[in-house]
């Protein structure tokens, strides 16, 4: 009996404490813009979220390498205003939800600015987390348009799909003279659906005909005979493949086997990889895609980056994300350098908004007056038999409307 009354007292105490706590602030819901973090001590922390595990690991590994390269360079040169840059890395496991947790962990560990993700789906979640805390986010390869709608301080160093798609549409229609184009879209990745949409709209606007659209799911398909046979029946002049190179290669290789020859294959920056020539085989030689830069360019930034990368890792970056990540880290550091006074996420965000004409590996980056979406040029490249990408035409942001 005594024990039972003790139990009641204990339960009552829990209840009382809870209600008190509840009154004091348990029911808060909307937390508007956060206050961000401020760098203290003798280092400035920047965070990177990358897919170090999971099926997007190739991009995650490259972006981590790119960022680490820049951070090491800065620190070897003495840091920023005497302070070292400390890189915090979080794994998103190729999963939006875990990516968000990773972002919040980095912020709670004191990152003043967060870099990352390549995949738009994960970046969208990160953008929400960053906006809530008032932390600026510099996206690496998230080209999907609506990422930057998630908050005021969401930046990216790449172009958007609403630019990339039209560039390829214009190139296909005007330069290649293709009048009938078919699409192949990976329904599993937001990037591919977004890019296909922007390509389709602009190409139709130019007066071209989209004869067919076929779908597949990345990672789930091994044989594309069925889709390709359908495409062949529609008699296209060109095929726009908006997916990642992991599927594009097999598709193109199998296309030639089912007799879909004499067509031009085109795609977006998801094509970029040194391995696409091996998986696509002879059929993909002569394919065109839109890229952020080409390692064949003779701009000094590209040369310096590649030399440093090879010196550190003994190989060239596997994908274009190495360079974009490097640029993302560079603009973040550039902004930190520009801050006078306390380095806080607020001041860094302000500095990012004022960044102008930064000469990045992937081209000039200007955030000033652009709301986080720098007007960047796009480079159409042609795949050569030796696997290199020959730049064939550069498009300025003003070239497509």
């Amino acid at each position, binding site marked *: 009996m005594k024990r039972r009354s003790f139990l009641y007292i204990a*339960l009552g105490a829990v209840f009382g404490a809870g209600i008190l*706590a509840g009154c004091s602030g348990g029911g808060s819901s909307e937390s508007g813009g956060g206050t961000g973090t401020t760098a203290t001590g003798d280092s400035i922390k920047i965070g990177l979220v990358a897919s170090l595990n999971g099926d997007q690991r190739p991009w995650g590994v490259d972006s981590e390498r790119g960022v680490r390269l820049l951070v090491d360079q800065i620190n070897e040169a003495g840091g920023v205003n005497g302070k070292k840059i400390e890189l915090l890395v979080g794994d998103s496991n190729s999963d939006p939800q875990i990516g968000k947790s990773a972002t919040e962990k980095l912020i709670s560990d004191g990152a003043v600015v967060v870099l990352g993700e390549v995949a738009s789906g994960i970046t969208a*979640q990160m953008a929400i987390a960053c906006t809530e805390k008032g932390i600026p986010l510099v996206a690496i390869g998230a080209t999907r348009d609506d990422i930057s709608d998630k908050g005021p301080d969401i930046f990216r160093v790449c172009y958007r799909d609403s630019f990339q798609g039209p560039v390829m549409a214009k190139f296909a229609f005007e330069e290649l003279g293709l009048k009938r184009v078919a699409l192949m879209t990976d329904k599993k990745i937001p990037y591919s659906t977004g890019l296909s949409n922007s390509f389709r709209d602009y190409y139709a606007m130019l007066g071209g005909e989209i004869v067919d659209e076929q779908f597949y799911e990345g990672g789930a398909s091994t044989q594309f005979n069925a889709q390709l046979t359908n495409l062949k029946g529609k008699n296209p002049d060109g095929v726009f493949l908006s997916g990642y190179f992991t599927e594009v290669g097999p598709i193109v290789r199998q296309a030639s086997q089912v007799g879909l020859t004499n067509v031009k294959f085109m795609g977006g920056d998801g094509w970029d990889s040194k391995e696409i020539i091996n998986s696509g085989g002879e059929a993909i030689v002569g394919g065109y895609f839109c890229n952020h830069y080409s390692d064949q360019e003779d701009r000094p930034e590209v040369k310096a980056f590649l030399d440093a990368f090879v010196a550190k890792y003994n190989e060239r970056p596997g994908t274009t994300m190495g360079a974009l990540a490097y640029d993302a880290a560079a603009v973040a550091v550039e902004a930190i350098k520009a801050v006078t006074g306390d380095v806080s996420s607020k001041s860094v965000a302000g500095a990012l908004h004022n960044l102008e004409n930064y000469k990045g590996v992937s081209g000039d980056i200007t955030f000033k007056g652009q709301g986080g979406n720098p007007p960047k040029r796009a480079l159409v490249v042609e795949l050569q038999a030796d696997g290199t990408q020959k730049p064939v035409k550069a498009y300025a942001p003003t070239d497509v409307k």
Partner: protein
Amino acid sequence: MKYWPTRVVSILAGLGACFLISAAADASGNDYTKRLVVLAGVWVILSVSLNLINGITGQFSIGHAAFWQVGAYSAGIISVQHYANSGITGLPWLLLMMVAGAIFAALAGLVVGLPSLRLRGDYLAIVTLGFGEIIRIIVQNQKPLGEAYGMNVSPKFQFTWLVWLTAFAAIAICRNLLKSAHGLPFLAVREDEVAASAMGVNVTRVKVTAFLIGSALAGVAGALFAHYEGFISPQQFRMEQSFIILTMVVLGGTGSITGSVLAAVALFYLPEKLRDMGPVTGGQLLAGTFATVLAVYLVKRVIDHFHGTKKEAAIRHLGIVLGCMALSFVLSIVLNQVPVLASARYEAEKLRMVIFSGVLIILMLVRPQGLLGHAEFSWEWLKRVLGQRRSEAAQTS
């Protein structure tokens, strides 16, 4: 006896505990911690609800994330389209959405539950798995649901206490069910369908009820999740998530509610906590792996071939584990003399999932019946343990 006082006090204590959790999360002033607390609550709901289907009723369902997804998306789309002109704001709306999520998920549960009447074991498993994939692919192809990219869910409601209150409610539902005579038919169906049926148990109804309650709870979890996150995408409800929920149920001990709760919290926190681990050299990794395998092997041998008292067995386990830890330490120093192994560094972030799956295998090998087996936490159990201590103390003094 003293029914109402007990009831009122325990309900109030539950509420109080929720507010305490919420307040503690807020007091940390750290949104990462807060998010983990909330998500842990969501996982608890999911694992407890799957436990009802899988552990208690014995229906081998491995597509639980589908119900979660149905709840999240249905509540999400209703919120997006009707919140503005509904005239209801704040908590009541969220409660309404939880009900909506529950109803839609329960409907989905009915769709899966009905074929389950004809299917047993692995066939049911593959049907539930397939159902999960079908839902994901359908959602992924709908424009209004944002296709693969996902959809914004507005408004956002971030009530930490409500998530945990729902978790407590889910636990209470299962516990009450098991405590009353009503729960026994569920267990009977798990044990032997033919005998249960011969004893007058309506097997069909029991199975469908289990699916309905389980999926409705998952739907509530989905609604809460969608409104907490503010943005949901099909990628968050992949097949792997279903496997993780299933793992929580089995690891906790099939049928044990306490086990499901503990395993949910543990399996959710483990990969997150692993983020704090420092980088590891190749030598350390190799030594650790070797020592772990050895320890598992030895412990397994003790379990299989040792028939002494529990205490002696426990001491042996401890000895083996400590020995292997020491071995791992020594071995790592030795192995780090090899330049190749010393120079290969693996960041913790890359090892997270490897360690996670390793822990999973080890736990299953060493304790296949799950952490708690069929056991449940109860005050009687606590009293017994405490009482034992006390009487032991009395004896020794």
